[in-house]
Structures are given as structure tokens and as C-alpha cells.
């Protein structure tokens, strides 16, 4: 398959629909607008009383999300799902509508679902009987429900690689399409782990930002004073199709996805590998899979968690991979606005990356008041940036995980 600079071994697939639910908005348009405005959504937790926790804030979905769930999911089914599973259903439904799937679908046995998730977010605080415990706690629940509600009868599964789960899901989806097992796959991730126990757990890992008087300033990737990530919740789902199916059924092709670059650091369960060596390896694999050179990338949506080590090593990896082009490459971390949506992050940021490509706007890094001089890339501080179409033909989205399971996706403008 032709890229500008080489030959990709696995054909690209078409992206024909997007679903996005974040703390900035409950659908694609409002989330995207919030991102371009650099809006804050971080606030004291509403879902539970965080008194006693070192971290008391995060990026929760707007309260109207309950009405969104009620509109899409019947009461009994809601009782059988966790918030994360409901989020997956609502996000996937948006993506399917965006792709006009119902109008175009033929054989539903050719439609697959691959979603990323660490778990379902099932976190009861007491030992009370829950008749739906097994269904709510089933790791495969999100993909099962999305298939069930869409009556999609192709392969359906959840892949789990912590914060890179969505990238691994896109990889699996791409293989289902390019090996002829599916015509269409809904792929991405959704996660909601905003509970007392989960926040307490991340506090124990010393991963969260705890020390700012104003939560709005807490998520500050690449800033000198960054001090941990801000937990978020959300979902990002893409409708992927073979290019042949998209053409034959009259789909609007938004972008193309190359086979993501995946690798494992094999270094540590929490700490990223010093120097970002395997982060760089994942980026190089993605470029190789896409048949592209570093200079072909016009925007990079960074993993950018706002932790000391991730942001340092990721920046070092970007420099190593992109060389001289690194100084010209616009890089931003949208986690500065969405928070870190954990296993949904790669799905959310894949959707954002496609939107950047389609709209020609690069979302900013919020709260970059004092850029860390040790990093020194173009992090698009504060304000969204317009870019000319010829400068933005390919975008990269980085996702790195606890456990060192790295995934990097590249989306390309349609030829």
C-alpha cells in the first residue's frame, strides 16, 4: 500500500465514523469544541466524597450523562452494566450513527467489535448481594453489549493493556479487516474508574497530581511544575472499514489508519523505561507500518500524562525518532483538558487525532505556563492552531501504559 515514503506491509483501513464522550462534552462536536477552546473540566469529585484522599479532583463527565445513558439503554440493562460499559455503548452508538452504519450495513456477521478496557470499573464498597455482579464485572462486557445492541455478529472482544488498550484494540481491528474476517469493525475504548477505591489506588502509586490549590491548573503536561496526572473518564470509538467496503457502500471516509506500532518495554510494571527507548521503538514501528518517514508526520498527540517521567522520556523518544523534524513538529497533550482517561485514553486520543486531520486544527496543551526547559518541543501552548492541509497529511497518537505496553497509531488524510 503506497505511503509517501515507502511501502506499508499491511493495507490501511478507512475511518468512517467517530464517537467521543469526554468531560468536555457528551458527543463529538462539544468535546472537540471544548478541546479547541482549551477549556477546563477538572473539578472536585462529585461521584463520591473524596474527603480523606490525597487527591480530591478529576475530570468527570457532565451530569447529563445519566440522561444520555437512559436514552440509549433500558433500565434493566443499565442495572447489568457499570458506568464504563454504558459509556462504551453510548460512544459506540454515536460512532455508528456518525458512520451511517444502519443505512449501509449488509451482513452483520461481517461486523466486529474490539474495545480496550482494563476492567469494567466494577467497584462495590461493601459486601452486599449484587444479583448482576458477574455481568457487571465481566471484563468482556463492553464489547459484548456493543455487539448485542448493534446486533453485530462478527468477532467481538475486549483487549486489555492498561492505558494503551485502545491502540491495541485498533491494531486487532485492523488485522480483522485486512485478513478478510470483517468488513467493518467498531474499535476504540471506554473507561470510568472514578471511584473512591480507584482514586485511592492511584494515590498509593503516587501517580496523581495532589498538590495544587486550583484543580483547573492540575493537569499541566510538559510544564516545569507538573506533578502527576489528573484522572478522567471517557470513551472514544472509531468505525473502521476495509477501503473496498467503504467505497462500495458510499461511506464518507474521514481518514485512513495504518497498522499501529506495538511493543512492550519489558522494564517495569510502573516506571517507564529511562530514555524512552521503547517509546521510540513503538513510534518507529508505527512509521514503518505506515510506510512513512518521520518528516511526514504533521502533528503528534502525545501520551503527555503530566507526570515527571512520562513527559521527560516521551520527549526524549520524540527527539530520537524525529531528529531535526522534532523542532518543527507540533505536539500537544489533550490530557491537559480531558484528564487521563486510563484505558480509554488511546481511543479518545485516536478520535481527537482524526478530528485534527479532518478539521485542520491542532488542539493545544492547556496549563503550559512555564514549559520545562529540559523538554523544549513545540507543545502548542494554550491556543489551538490552524494548519494548512498540505502540512497535515499524517498524524501520530502515542499511548504508553503501566506494564510498558506501548501503542502508537498513525492516521492519514485520504488520498
Amino acid at each position, binding site marked *: 500500500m503506497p505511503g509517501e515514503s515507502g511501502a506499508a506491509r499491511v493495507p490501511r483501513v478507512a475511518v468512517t465514523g467517530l464517537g467521543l464522550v469526554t468531560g468536555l462534552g457528551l458527543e463529538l462536536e462539544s468535546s472537540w469544541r471544548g478541546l479547541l477552546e482549551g477549556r477546563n473540566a477538572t473539578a472536585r469529585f462529585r461521584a463520591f466524597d473524596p474527603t480523606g484522599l490525597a487527591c480530591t479532583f478529576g475530570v468527570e463527565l457532565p451530569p447529563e450523562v445519566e440522561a444520555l445513558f437512559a436514552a440509549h439503554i*433500558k*433500565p*434493566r440493562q443499565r442495572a447489568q452494566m457499570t458506568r464504563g460499559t454504558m459509556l462504551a455503548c453510548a460512544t459506540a452508538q454515536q460512532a455508528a450513527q456518525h458512520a451511517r452504519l444502519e443505512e449501509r450495513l449488509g451482513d452483520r456477521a461481517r461486523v466486529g467489535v474490539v474495545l480496550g478496557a482494563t476492567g469494567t470499573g466494577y467497584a462495590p464498597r461493601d459486601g452486599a448481594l449484587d444479583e448482576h455482579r458477574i455481568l457487571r464485572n465481566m471484563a468482556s462486557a463492553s464489547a459484548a453489549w456493543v455487539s448485542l*445492541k448493534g446486533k453485530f455478529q462478527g468477532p467481538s472482544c475486549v483487549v486489555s493493556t492498561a492505558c494503551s488498550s485502545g491502540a491495541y484494540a485498533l491494531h486487532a481491528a485492523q488485522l480483522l479487516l485486512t485478513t478478510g474476517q470483517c468488513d467493518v469493525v467498531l474499535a476504540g475504548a471506554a473507561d470510568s474508574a472514578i471511584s473512591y477505591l480507584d482514586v485511592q489506588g492511584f494515590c498509593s502509586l503516587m501517580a496523581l497530581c495532589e498538590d495544587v490549590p486550583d484543580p483547573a491548573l492540575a493537569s499541566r503536561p510538559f510544564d516545569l511544575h507538573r506533578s502527576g496526572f489528573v484522572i478522567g473518564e471517557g470513551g472514544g470509538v472509531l468505525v473502521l472499514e476495509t477501503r473496498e467496503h467503504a467505497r462500495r457502500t458510499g461511506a464518507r471516509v474521514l481518514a485512513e489508519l495504518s497498522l499501529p506500532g506495538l511493543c512492550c518495554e519489558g522494564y517495569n510494571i510502573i516506571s517507564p523505561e529511562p530514555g524512552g527507548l521503547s517509546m521510540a521503538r513503538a513510534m518507529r514501528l508505527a512509521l514503518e507500518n505506515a510506510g512513512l518517514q518521520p518528516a511526514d508526520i504533521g502533528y503528534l498527540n502525545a501520551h503527555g500524562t503530566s507526570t515527571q517521567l512520562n513527559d521527560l522520556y516521551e520527549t526524549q523518544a520524540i527527539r530520537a525518532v524525529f531528529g531535526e523534524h522534532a523542532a518543527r513538529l507540533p505536539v500537544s497533550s489533550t490530557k491537559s483538558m480531558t484528564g487521563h482517561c486510563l484505558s480509554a485514553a488511546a481511543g479518545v486520543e485516536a478520535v481527537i487525532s482524526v478530528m485534527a486531520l479532518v478539521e485542520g486544527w491542532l488542539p493545544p496543551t492547556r496549563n503550559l505556563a512555564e514549559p520545562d526547559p529540559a523538554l523544549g518541543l513545540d507543545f502548542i501552548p494554550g491556543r489551538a492552531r490552524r494548519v494548512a492541509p498540505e502540512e497535515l497529511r499524517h498524524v501520530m497518537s502515542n499511548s504508553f501504559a503501566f506494564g510498558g505496553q506501548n501503542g502508537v497509531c498513525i492516521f492519514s488524510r485520504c488520498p
Partner: protein
Amino acid sequence: MNPVEPKTLGEIRDLVLDYFADECDIDRGTISDETDIIRDLEGDSLMLLALLEMFRKKYGLTVELKSLGKHLMKRPARTVGQVVSLTAELVRHGNDILSVEL
């Protein structure tokens, strides 16, 4: 053994339809005897257990789940009408339902 009185049968039918309408968030008027619980209502087999628990309390049934399970293997209750009939038979025969030729 006497058949279930028409009044009781009507009561059972009302309770079953109300239950499915409520649980599945659907207008009761759209539910008929032919309505398929899984295909049409997006319901699930656990709903039968919830109904059984409801009827156990209301009619003092002593039916064991194992007996009901065996009965359902022979005569599945997939539609609302079949659930109403099943409930009526349970009220009539109780735990002896397995030994009754329906």
C-alpha cells in the same frame, strides 16, 4: 387438580405484563402474548427468576429452581404468553410440575 381460576389467570397476566413493561422500559400496550422476551424486549432469562420470586411471595409457591429449570428444558418460555402459561401451571401444580404431562 383444578385449573387456575380465570380471575387468578388475569391477575398473573397483569403482573407479568407490568413486570416486562417496567423492566424493559416499554409501553405495556405494545406487549402481546407473542412478544419474544429476548428478541423483542431485549430481556434476559434471569427475568424469569425475578418473576418466580415475585409469584413465590404472592401465591406462597414452594417451587424449587431446579424443578423449574428442568421444566424449562422441556418447555421453554420464550414469549410473554408462554411465561403467563408457565406461571399459571406453577400456581396450579407447584413443585409437582415435572410430573405433570402438560
